[in-house]
């Protein structure tokens, strides 16, 4: 899907305009990403970038992935 925003936080806002109700599933009352939601910009975890303030430009690919999948041990 396509969305337009300057930052990840803005992207969540734009998704909410397109799909009302999605925002509260992604972020909590304080606006923080929920514990089990991971966001990647061009395959990089935004916690290694600038969190929800991570800047976006046209053509960036953003993945929203549940934190659940795990591995060894």
């Amino acid at each position, binding site marked *: 899907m396509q969305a337009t925003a300057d930052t990840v936080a803005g992207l969540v806002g734009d998704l909410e305009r397109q799909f009302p109700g999605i925002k509260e599933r992604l972020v909590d009352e304080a606006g923080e990403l929920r514990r*089990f939601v991971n966001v990647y910009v061009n395959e990089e975890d935004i916690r290694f970038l600038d969190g929800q303030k991570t800047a976006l430009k046209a053509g960036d690919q953003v*993945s929203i992935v549940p*934190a659940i999948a*795990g591995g*060894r*041990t």
Partner: protein
Amino acid sequence: MNTVIGLACRECGRAYPDAPIQVCERCFGPLDVQYRYDALVGRVTRDTIAAGPRSMWRYRELLPVQGETAVGRHVGLTPLVWAPHLAKALGVREAWIKNDGVCHPTWSFKDRVVAVAVAKARELGFDTVACGSTGNLASSLAAHAAEAGMAAYILLPADLEPGKLLGALVYRPVLVAVEGTYDDVNRLSSEIADSRPWAFVNVNLRPYYTEGSKSYGFEIVEQLGWRAPDHIVVPCAAGSLYTKIWKAIKELETLRLIDGPAGTRMHAAQAAGCAPIVTMIKSDTDVLVPVRPTTIAKSIAVGNPADAYDAYRTAKASGGSAEQATDEEIVDAMLLLARTEGIFAETAGGVTVAATRKLVERGVIRRDESVVVCITGSGLKTTDALQDRVAPDVTIRPSLAAFDRALNDLQEASHGRARSYPHATAHADQGQRRGAGDG
């Protein structure tokens, strides 16, 4: 009897049916299998378990699989080894090794989770299984898929140890090497699982798959004579085994199968180069800060552990702690375990032994207490880690004279210095031995 009620979100509690659902659709939280414990009290007893198969399936009422299992029937019930020499080296009264390095069929505890996941995949009608892995899971899934006659797709980090790659390829899955870390593999797995009709064992079957780890905990308690130890030290990657051993103890408590109070304290062990869970526990925060792993303990190099939050809660609930080990400490501890107890663990086992030593030194594990050290995979899987630390003492021509001379030289070289019989010492490696000439 069907003992499974369904699934429920660990975070918000929303209930789901017994089906391959990846996460809670409301809050993305992980899902847990719900059992009819009330119907199991008094029905699952020490006697019924003892009369069961000599495998993890003796606990089948507490595993989320219906009917007879067609594959993985011999998985589990690995030795719990009394380890007096290691105990002495570590400075504790009572140490035990739970050794899944000899788990059938692929020499790691992953056989437990895979046995459950593949059985569940068949039960749910899948013909294809898949996983993202740091190696041990890949090998186990490929083996069980071969046994089950199912197709297997496996994603691995491209820089994995050659032995681990081979350990999966031998069973002929479709193996995709991914240029990236395990965390990259994991994210990709989640995205693939959404678009393919596969049983992705550590994604959409994860609620069932992880339940297999409980059998490791059930066995510890049963093998100790239905007693829970004072301490259990567990290597953590995603953190699931750690949380499930604790869950196993609580379930046995619920079923009134444990003698006395189960006061076990659960301790997490990670490599210093990838210790996000240890960091959370030691700094007492429930917020995970992911890391980029740099450690020889690749099987547990998960920088963004799925069960970090639950691992933190397990430490809090059990009064447990955590420790980390550097690469050098990992290798030293692998050698210590091998030379005190004759058990060759993979690098993750070195992490656990090294962490146990630190927990004793810190006084977290008191010297008069009992500890179970969890070994989750065989040392033959990670021989690369020891290449620089072991070598033949001497090379000779095939003559008796050369042998006698070499042995004499070796004895002179070791004169005055305790050759490392580490039962008497707390240190694993007394330094490189020099080879004598063969004349």
